[in-house]
Structures are given as structure tokens and as C-alpha cells.
């Protein structure tokens, strides 16, 4: 059942508009102060006034997030490979990683500011740290969760470890890694923003914090709106990749 994009988007857009109308015209009848919940129009006005600053800071946050995510992708997949192909790594690294994963990583953020400074490095590394685990764990599952018969088949045909890796393991891992990215991307954003909350003077997190100091709630809302648009765009991009290259996934098949 293929529906046109316009029809698919119709209902969500209608419900968003309904909420906005209710918000705009219902709010004046309550006694909620505007610094707690500003009117949608007030947010729109503030968005317009501060658009340049918002976009500039979003750009900073987006860069640290995406760099952190890219780093997590590379390191996460490499770690998964090491675990599979180097038994010693499997024995040593996995328990260490599991223990490390038990620490709430946000709690490490202040330490990262001390270690790596107030600049962008600490944000990139925080984004990396948060996105690393889901990507690593998913990559690992994807590389090993393969029927034993497939390996038997490959070995009977004369498959070398390298060929099996490239044509079986890696291909099998791809959708798992994409899932890891879907989870890791919003987490990387959390890492960046928390980093900006704690130290530094750039990024959308910094802007939100200054909005809080000045009770400039419309600015905070405008910033949140832009962040969610950024996240949505990122996820949409990943889904597009999935649709184009991983159409064979059970969840992606057309009925």
C-alpha cells in the first residue's frame, strides 16, 4: 500500500496545526505567565529576530555532534572488529567496556571539560562517548549474528577469512550499524549540548543557557525547535540511506 508523501504527511501536519491553534488561542484564557509558556507567535518573532545567532550556534553544535558521531562510528566498528578477530581483546576489553558503560556518561562531562578544555574538543569527545556504545554493541551483533550454515557454505567454497568478512560479516552488520547510528545520533547531540551547558561560549546549548539566565523563554523554545528540526533531518537522512541500500531488511520490505 504505497501512499503519496502528501497524504502520509497530511495527518501529522494537521495535528501540529491543531495543537498550535489551541496553544495560541487557549493560552490567554489560562493564567500561565508568558515566561513559563510563551505564545507560538512570540516564539516565531524571537526566532526571526535571533535567526542568525541561532543558525550560527546550531552549526557549531551540529559540527561537534556529527564529528563525534563519525568518530564513534569508526571507533565503534573497529572495536567490534577487534573483539571478533583478536581473542585477547575480547577477553580484556569487553568486561572493561561493560563496566565503563555502567557509569552515567553525562556525569563524566565536567571531567572532560577539565581534560580537554572549553573548546570544541571536549564537546566532540562527549558526543563520541555517548554514541560509541550503541554503535559498538550493534556492530558487534551484526558481525556475529549469522547462521553457522552460512560460514560452512563459505568455507566449503574456499572462502578466506577476508572474503567472508567482506561479503558476509560486513554486509550482515550494515543494517545493525545503521540502527546503532539511529540511536547514537540523538545521544551524540545530548553529549554536545551537555558539553556546551557546562563550559564554553558557543553552540545551541550555550544559547539555551543564556536564554534561561535572561528568562528569555521564547529564545529557548526557538532553539529547541531548531534542534528538533536538525535531529529529524538527520534521522530522515539515515532512513533514506536505509531505503536506498538496505531495502532487503525485513522492516523495509514492501508489502
Amino acid at each position, binding site marked *: 500500500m504505497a501512499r503519496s508523501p502528501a497524504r502520509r504527511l497530511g495527518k501529522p501536519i494537521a495535528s501540529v496545526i491543531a495543537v498550535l491553534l489551541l496553544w495560541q488561542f487557549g493560552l490567554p484564557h489560562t493564567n500561565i505567565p508568558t515566561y513559563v509558556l510563551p505564545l507560538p507567535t512570540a516564539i516565531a518573532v524571537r526566532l526571526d529576530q535571533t535567526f542568525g545567532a541561532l543558525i550560527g550556534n546550531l552549526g557549531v553544535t551540529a559540527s561537534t555532534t556529527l564529528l563525534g558521531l563519525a568518530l564513534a562510528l569508526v571507533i565503534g566498528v573497529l572495536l567490534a572488529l577487534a573483539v571478533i578477530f583478536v581473542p585477547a581483546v575480547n577477553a580484556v576489553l569487553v568486561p572493561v567496556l561493560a563496566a565503563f558503560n555502567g557509569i552515567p556518561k553525562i556525569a563524566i562531562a565536567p571531567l572532560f571539560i577539565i581534560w580537554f578544555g572549553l573548546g570544541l574538543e571536549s564537546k566532540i569527545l562527549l558526543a563520541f562517548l555517548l554514541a560509541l556504545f550503541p554503535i559498538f554493541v550493534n556492530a558487534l551483533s551484526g558481525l556475529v549474528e549469522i547462521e553457522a550454515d552460512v560460514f560452512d*557454505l563459505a568455507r*566449503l*567454497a*574456499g572462502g578466506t577469512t577476508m572474503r567472508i568478512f567482506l561479503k558476509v560479516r560486513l*554486509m550482515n552488520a550494515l543494517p545493525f550499524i545503521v540502527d546503532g547510528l539511529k540511536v547514537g545520533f540523538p545521544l551524540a547531540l545530548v553529549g554536545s549540548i551537555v558539553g556546551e551547558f557546562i563550559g564554553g561560549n558557543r553552540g545551541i546549548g550555550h544559547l539555551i543557557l543564556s536564554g534561561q539566565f535572561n528568562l528569555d523563554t521564547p529564545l529557548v523554545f526557538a532553539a529547541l525547535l531548531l534542534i528538533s528540526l536538525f535531529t529529524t533531518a538527520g534521522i530522515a537522512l539515515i532512513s533514506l540511506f536505509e531505503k536506498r541500500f538496505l531495502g532487503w531488511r525485513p522492516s523495509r520490505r514492501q508489502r
Partner: protein
Amino acid sequence: MSDSTVEPRQPAPAVAAPTALVELSSVRKVFDDLIAIDGISFQVTDNEFVSIVGPSGCGKSTLLRMLAGLIAPSSGAIRLRGRPLQGPARDVGMVFQSPVLLPWRTALENVLFVAEMRGERRRTYRSRALDLLRLAGLAGFENRMPYELSGGMQQRVAICRALLLNPSIILMDEPFGALDIITRERMGFELQNIWSASRSTVLFVTHSITEAALLSDRILVMSARPGRLVEVVRVDLPRPRERRTLSSPRFVEIAAHVSETIAGGWVE
């Protein structure tokens, strides 16, 4: 154990004697404390179609995996063309009970998978793969993904894949187990065609006595665990076997005999 086979054990091959394609001598397989295979000896010659039947858990799959060199016997020896088998056998095609297709590859790409594993170029085997798919009745489905194929079609892709590199031995582990009775029968006849065209040797595990009697030159009947060879039944029906073979008196006789042998009833 010595009475477990009808075939006389041959002495070590003399100079002039032709070496058997496959030779098992006193093969045993023990998993921890579980005896799966308890001393099996038999030989298979070139171009033979041999079925293996026996109760569930008697070690048929284990036997095939040993023949493929995927697992080693606990004792005894397996020789391919007179050479002791060490590690995964080259020159062996395998069909498992489930199709085991890679979901991200089309039917054609799945057939070509074994060529790629061998380090060959796809291009070299492409036309052969297409021929095999056509022979298996899959013309027009070459570029479909596995999920777009029915279970029987997937299994036929798996059979084409096992044939691609023209192996001298094809091991099939209940390849039609998941199919309905009609498709299964049709696939049996198709397999007979493919086999007689490819001149390879087939070892075929099945739970269907009809299938075994219809397709085989010989049927190896195994006992319940620990797996031993109870009897080797020679099927002397003329080829090609057709649907009417099923109702020929000789066929019925052989099938009844195999059935009683499996059940442990002895018929002279």
C-alpha cells in the same frame, strides 16, 4: 558392527582397483559422552545417487558434515578419491535443510556467492549460473531478492548454488523437508534431471522413503542412535524414473522393504 552392512568391506585398494570417490571406514563420532555415529563404513562411486534414511537424531546430518570435512570424525577415516579428508572439502557442494540464502543478494548473486568465495570473478560464472537457474525453473526470477521467492524457489536457488562450481560431490540434508508434498515431488524429479545432466555424485539425506526409493541408486538405512548402518538397499529401477515408477510393483516392494528395515523389522 560387522553385520551392519551388506556391502563387503574391501581391502585396501590394490593397484588396479579404481578408488572410490568417497570412502568411510569405521567412522565414529562422539559428542562429549553422546555417541552419534558408531562405526560406519561404506563407499560411494562416481556418479552415484545415494540416499541416507534413518530415524531423527541418528546422526545423518553429522555424517554429512563429516563428509564435507566441516567436523572431524572421533575415529576412523574418510577418504575422498583416496585422499584423507582434512578440513573443509573442496569440490563439494552442500544443500542444507533451509535455503541459507543471503538476504541482501538476488537469486543470481546468491548462486554466484560460492564463486566469489572461491576468489573467482562473477563474470566467469554468470552464464553458468543463469543456465542453472533456468534449468531449475527460475527463469525470470534471477534478479529477485530471496524474500520475493517462495520457499521452494529459495531451495532451488540453494541447489543451483551447490551445483555452480561443478562439484563432484553434492551433499543434501533434507533439502525438500520444508516443502509441501506436491512441490516436493516435482523438485525430486527436477533434481533427478539436474543430477543426470551434471554427472555428479549425490548424497541425499531424507525422511521420505518414497523420495529415497525414487531417486537413489542405493539407500543407506541407519539405526536409531547410536547411528549404525543397518542395511544398504540397492534400487534397481530403470532410469529415468517417472511418476508411474511410483506405482510399479518393484518400487512398492523396495519402499516397503526400506520402511520395514527402518522400523527394525527384518525381511528376508
